[in-house]
């Protein structure tokens, strides 16, 4: 803006300057993995055996759930083809590590060690096992920048699971300690929304697939003279504790 550079030159300058920090990001990642390994090495044998047993049980439960899910998916595909509907896009997951947060106080972005060389593309959804995190905003050769839910650049079309009311997640900058809280504005007045209701992505807009957990309603109030309902939503993903995330990659049907 101030340097008045054309977008291509500004992008190249950004890549060049950010690459100066790559050694530090690598060093921080290596240090973290050394600390993790040291922590694992200090665990007792009994603890590790207990952990393996617990993971084995979880694995069996997940395999069962996966089998049921696949059966339901196959049925869904058959029914869609019988009805003549378009097949749904399938998504695959790729893991990435969070290597940095936005150094300013007004934007909400994180940096991942997942760049163009790893298959990152602008717009890909990012999530954790808790819920939606955001979408990829910019892609560099070795890293990518993710804009988090709650930033002005990351609007999310959502639906309340219990009432099926649709709405849009917006940023709220007025709350001084409110990084984990965002504002949901419904498309119409919806008095049935209550605290504790679950908010999930609606799939409208095509960026985020439907059904990803976004958060839970904290409280509601009528807005614009009762035309809409505004709800404060506590996000499911804990942005302050993000270490590893998943990137959803769309598979062509």
């Amino acid at each position: 803006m101030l340097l008045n550079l054309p977008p291509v030159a500004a992008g190249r300058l950004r890549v060049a300057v950010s690459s100066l920090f790559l050694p530090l990001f690598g060093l921080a990642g290596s240090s973290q993995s050394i600390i993790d390994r040291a922590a694992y090495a200090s665990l007792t044998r009994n603890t590790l055996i207990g952990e393996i047993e617990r993971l084995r049980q979880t694995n069996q439960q997940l395999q069962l759930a996966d089998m049921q899910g696949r059966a339901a998916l196959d049925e869904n595909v058959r029914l869609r083809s019988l009805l003549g509907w378009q097949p749904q896009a399938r998504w695959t997951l790729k893991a990435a590590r969070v290597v940095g947060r936005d150094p300013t106080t007004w934007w909400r972005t994180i940096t991942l060690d997942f760049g163009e060389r790893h298959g990152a593309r602008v717009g890909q959804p990012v999530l954790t096992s808790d819920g939606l995190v955001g979408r990829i905003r910019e892609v560099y050769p070795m890293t990518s920048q993710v804009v988090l839910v709650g930033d002005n650049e990351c609007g999310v079309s959502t639906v309340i699971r219990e009432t099926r009311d649709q709405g849009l997640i917006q940023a709220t900058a007025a709350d001084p300690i409110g990084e984990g809280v965002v504002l949901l504005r419904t498309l119409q007045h919806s008095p049935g929304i209550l605290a504790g209701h679950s908010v999930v992505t609606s799939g409208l807009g095509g960026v985020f697939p439907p059904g990803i957990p976004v958060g839970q309603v904290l409280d509601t109030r009528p807005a614009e003279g009762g035309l809409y309902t505004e709800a404060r939503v506590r996000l499911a993903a804990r942005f302050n504790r993000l270490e590893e995330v998943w990137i959803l990659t769309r598979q062509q049907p």
Partner: protein
Amino acid sequence: MNRVPITLLLLTTWLAVFGQTQFPTLFGDLGMPLDIRPALIVYAALTHGLPTVLGIALVSSLGTDALSANPIGVSLVPSFVLGLVLNLRRHLLLREQGYAQMWLGLSGGIAVPLMTWGLLLMDDRHAPIGFGVLFRILLIGFLNAAACPALFVVFDGLRDVFDYKPIPEMGFRKDREIKRGRT
């Protein structure tokens, strides 16, 4: 002047920019980065020349903008303006007093993010507006108020270590020796 203190100052700035992107658990709940760049600019402006101030402003601003969602270069002008004003008026400032350093750190810590935020609001990127942002800018000011005197202590100590020492003059000068008696 020895180049080591300036190199160390630039290196610290580079590490400080990187440090801002880390430590999510320390300041994450407040949404505030560990931003000590204004304190570094204040120190550079009060103890070094304009080229050093420009160097620190370039490293800190371009680094921060490249690692954030800021348009690249947006924080360069606020950082350099702070450094320039302090450098030009440093003969009027009580720069060796701890409380003056603290107030300068506080003022710089508030002024630089506030000016950058103001520039962003003029842009079409829709930077957030609200008391939350102002509250965090105030916290950054307090952080820099604490960091500025500490930087003076550390870097003045480093300067003492690395700067060339003046040759000590001996009290006794042979050419001024008064010789008594006949030789």
